[in-house]
């Protein structure tokens, strides 16, 4: 039980998952900045800008920070253990 909690709070994900997470977090934040700026400029309201931006950030955090199982679908393939010759 405590091992499960430890594994969840550490939240390791494999390398393919890390690549994916890096790409979508960078793209979402840049796109979110641009979209929320243009929406606020059009509607002339700073509340729209920062509200929309906060929604983007919360959605990104939920999608990316917990170690979802889909990020662990490509575990590293270790080579089989080699028998060492006794000296």
């Amino acid at each position, binding site marked *: 039980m405590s091992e499960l909690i430890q594994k969840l*709070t*550490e*939240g*390791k*994900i494999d390398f393919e998952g*890390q690549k994916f*997470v*890096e790409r979508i*977090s*960078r793209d979402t*934040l*840049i796109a*979110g*900045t641009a979209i*929320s*700026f243009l929406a*606020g*400029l059009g509607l*002339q*309201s*700073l509340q729209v*800008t920062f509200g929309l*931006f906060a929604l983007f*950030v919360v959605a*990104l*955090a939920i999608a*990316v*920070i*917990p*170690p979802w199982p889909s990020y662990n679908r490509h575990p590293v393939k270790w080579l089989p253990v080699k028998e060492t010759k006794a000296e």
Partner: protein
Amino acid sequence: MHTVYARINNISAMLSTCVMVLLAAVSLSTFVFTADPKGTLAVSSIQVFPGNARRYANKNQDFTFVNFNLTADLSPLFNWSTKQLFLYVSAEYENKRGVKNEVVIWDRIVRRKEDADLSVAGRNKYVFRELSASFKDAAPAHYSLKYNIMPYVGVLTYGEAARTAEPVPFPERQELS
């Protein structure tokens, strides 16, 4: 990105950069919104009385009382980054010694676009006194309405919205009866 801590760290770093870029973009966008609204300001009555200021009980000096009518529609100045407008009416004149004076006699803070359409019959909120204690032989004064746009993010901008068409002379000191 291998642990929860690393993901939170990376995302918060990118996030703070994005927020700073967003704020810089908002403040740059304020340069696009230029508006120069004009209004009218007229002095309806002006009187000069002698008296003592509370602070200097023994100094007998002149006090000017100005009633004015002000109309201006300043709602074009409200854009998304305008937090409030600080408006002030100031009297500009030269006293008999040739010293230029600019005295703020009335001010108002406007926080909403709906409140920016002004039609005010006001009198001076603040004491209008001359440092040399007498308005005798002072040059006629120009009264002007100036504004200061205070943004949420951006630079402070100043402007003038109304001015009396002709300078208004100071009357002779009246004795209180």
